[in-house]
């Protein structure tokens, strides 16, 4: 059960971040040339791989209770950010994430920027892709490392993330357009719920608390977080004024 949650969480988080990174890379490639854009992607992937290689083994030597407390606390704070934004979007207090609109803005910015070449690569296109993939990728790395290390299975979390990366990149190459039809807002809601659920579960265990039924209570916490989030959406929706995208 927990392994399933682990893979699903890593997959969903990676998929939504990859969709956002893809939009930036596409805008960079279309406006500034694919060589610069893909060089930026490659450089960011190397940096992300270095972060995983450096931090992954280090996390596995931390005692499990201390790890659960640190990871649980971080996931809880981090997850509440996701959940807060998702609830604000779902209740109409924040504009929904729109990949088409973001793509149009990024494209206009990229086309208007001056061209400066370094080593045969357009610098703006390189930096745009590099930053996009690195920043979106760091969230994935954070989730994969924290989930994976606490469950003692970084490879399983990496598998979930890897499948999402391959899937989104494959679809992106095939359609060569922003993936605006991916239910990104719903997926972000799901990731926020999962991060918060695991954060509550591990932080409680990390400080010496015991769950009734041990791991079996994880789905109960999940249902509780979903129900509470849905109630908050319903409560806030009553007071919402429509927000333009």
């Amino acid at each position, binding site marked *: 059960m927990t392994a399933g949650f682990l893979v699903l969480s890593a997959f969903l988080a990676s998929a939504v971040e990859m969709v956002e990174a893809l939009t930036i890379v596409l805008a960079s490639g279309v406006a500034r040339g694919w060589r610069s854009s893909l060089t930026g992607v490659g450089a960011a992937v190397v940096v992300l791989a270095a972060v995983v290689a450096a931090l992954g083994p280090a996390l596995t030597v931390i005692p499990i209770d201390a790890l659960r*407390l640190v990871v*649980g*606390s*971080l996931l*809880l*704070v*981090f997850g*509440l*950010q996701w*959940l*807060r934004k998702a*609830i*604000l979007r779902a209740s109409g*207090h924040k504009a929904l994430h729109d990949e088409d609109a973001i793509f149009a803005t990024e494209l206009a910015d990229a086309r208007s920027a001056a061209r400066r070449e370094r080593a045969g690569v357009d610098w703006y296109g390189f930096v745009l892709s590099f930053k996009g993939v690195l920043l979106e990728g*760091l*969230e994935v790395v*954070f989730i994969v490392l924290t989930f994976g290390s606490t469950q003692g299975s970084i490879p399983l979390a990496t598998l979930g993330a890897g499948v999402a990366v391959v899937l989104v990149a494959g679809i992106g190459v095939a359609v060569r357009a922003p993936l605006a039809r991916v239910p990104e807002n719903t997926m972000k809601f799901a990731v926020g719920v999962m991060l*918060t659920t695991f*954060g*509550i579960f591990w*932080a*409680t265990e990390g*400080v*010496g*608390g*015991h*769950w*009734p039924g041990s791991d079996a*209570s994880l789905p109960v*916490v999940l249902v*509780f*977080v979903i129900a*509470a*989030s849905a109630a*908050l959406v319903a409560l*806030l929706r009553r*007071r919402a004024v429509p927000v333009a995208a």
Partner: protein
Amino acid sequence: MKKSIVAFGRFWWDFVVGDDWLAAVGVAIAIGATAALAAGGIAAWWLLPLAVVLVLYVSLRRAIAA
């Protein structure tokens, strides 16, 4: 050098804590209270889920008010 360290720290603060530091403080207090209950031999599992919903509600109200 100092500028880089500050920028590095600010990046991680924004990355993990985001734009509502009060939510992070609320979570820290709730975890501390859970630890205190657990150390006293009292069942503590119920506290964090309830506290998180309360923190989330307050954080949402702050975001809407802002």
